[in-house]
């Protein structure tokens, strides 16, 4: 039950892109078309989940026993995430060249984007790696659920955004707002809407 709360909580209440404003770069950059937005969403879910798991395991079983988690966790997380994203990039380039072209520069930008590091750091801040608060399996499951949920929430935000932006192509808004300005206006409106979820879970 707790896991479900955690999962839906991170999708709606603490949505990474619309409530916590992390990961705005790929969110704005790839959300022009629904197809590339969904592709990016799937990539992010994969990276976030895997990054969450690996980072949690490293934190719990390597860094914490050695007492290194205080100052090394950020470096280790970034190292892991960078390697993961490179791996995902290679896989996508081979399996779906069209998607690779569509995502372009935004694929490696998952590395530097704060959402993935954010979910790893959030897991750590929630104490999942702390043996005193959660058991080994419990903590691992929570980290996985939060990671996956974060990715799903990200994809949800991207899907909604891309749908709106595709429709905006048929709307007569002032040309000076074309491109990123209108995207930010839309994001702000969506964030306001998602505020309605706060306090629900």
């Amino acid at each position, binding site marked *: 039950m707790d896991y479900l709360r955690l999962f839906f909580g991170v999708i709606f209440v603490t949505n990474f892109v619309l409530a916590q404003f992390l990961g705005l770069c790929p969110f704005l950059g790839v959300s022009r078309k629904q197809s590339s937005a969904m592709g990016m969403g799937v990539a992010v879910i994969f990276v976030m989940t895997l990054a969450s798991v690996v980072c949690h395991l490293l934190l719990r079983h390597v*860094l914490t026993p050695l*007492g290194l988690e*205080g100052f090394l966790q950020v470096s280790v997380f970034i190292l892991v995430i960078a390697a993961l994203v490179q791996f995902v990039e*290679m896989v996508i*380039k*081979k399996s779906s060249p069209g998607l690779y*072209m569509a995502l372009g520069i935004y694929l490696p930008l998952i590395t530097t984007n704060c959402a993935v590091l954010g979910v790893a750091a959030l897991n750590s801040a929630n104490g999942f790696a702390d043996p005193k608060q959660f058991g080994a399996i419990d903590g691992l499951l929570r980290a996985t659920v939060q990671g996956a949920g974060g990715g799903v929430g990200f994809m949800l935000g991207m899907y909604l955004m891309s749908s709106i932006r595709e429709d905006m192509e048929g709307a007569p808004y002032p040309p000076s707002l074309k491109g990123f300005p209108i995207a930010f206006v839309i994001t702000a409106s969506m964030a306001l809407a998602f505020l309605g979820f706060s306090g629900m879970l």
Partner: protein
Amino acid sequence: MTGFALLQAVLAASAEAPAGGSGPGPGAVIGWGAGVLGVLGAALGLLLYVASRAFAIKTDPKVDEILAALPGANCGGCGLAGCAAYAETLVKSGGAVNLCGPGGTAAAAKIAAILGVAFDSADRRVSVLACRGTAQFAPAKYEYSGVRDCRAAALVHDGPKACRWGCLGLGTCAAACPFGAISMGADGLAHVAEELCMACSKCVTVCPRSLFRLASEKQTVRVACASHDPGKETNRVCKVGCIACRRCEKSCKFEAIKVVENLAAIDYGKCKNCGACVKVCPRGIIVNWRAARKARKARAADSSPAQEPAEAAS
């Protein structure tokens, strides 16, 4: 506090974080830290190496070189799906190196060098409109109100213009041009600003009357009419339409201009841009852009590129 003292404080604090105070001392922390990072780095590096072998794709380095030479606008003007497609096709099956309008002669020269083919860099292409039928010369046959698009207007009784070959003036070409090189004049015709034109051929595809032609900048003498109607019919609907009188044909010493299907057509293999046909045409349909271009370049400081005079004869 000094920087070092700050560092000491941080280390001490982190050393106390694990419960029971069983954390190692600062030296051990740095040692373990370096060790962990080192091992992790090595392991991930190995993983990436293995993955790069497993997921390797063979690419011809030439494709990447050509891609770097192209502007990356993905405008589709070359006729293919994008810069990557053009680069791949060039390497795979060869072809003309100067199809990239935005890249221009610079890109064409670089591509030629990469592929090792010859290329004459003096040939820039621009788009030219084959119609002079302004609202004054070529009246409308009805008052049109509807979608402001030439392709849509052409569906309604062959367009509002009495001449069914001429420019409808609703600006579909101007909207389609990604470089802003086409503007609609007050006379109801499209005007191409040659300096901005990148010959991407979007206007060629989108005009419902197929009035645009991509021509070399050197071909200054052009027939500014596309009507294949017999002379009597053309005369009825337009004052500056080709009536196939054949005076141009008779005046040409190089047999470069012939009247084919009621319309004068120039063979640019033979045309020497002498302008003889321009002088004899009773309707002023054959136009020499050289004078107009000179005048425009002279005014280049302050005039907007869109003010290209429609009736320019040398």
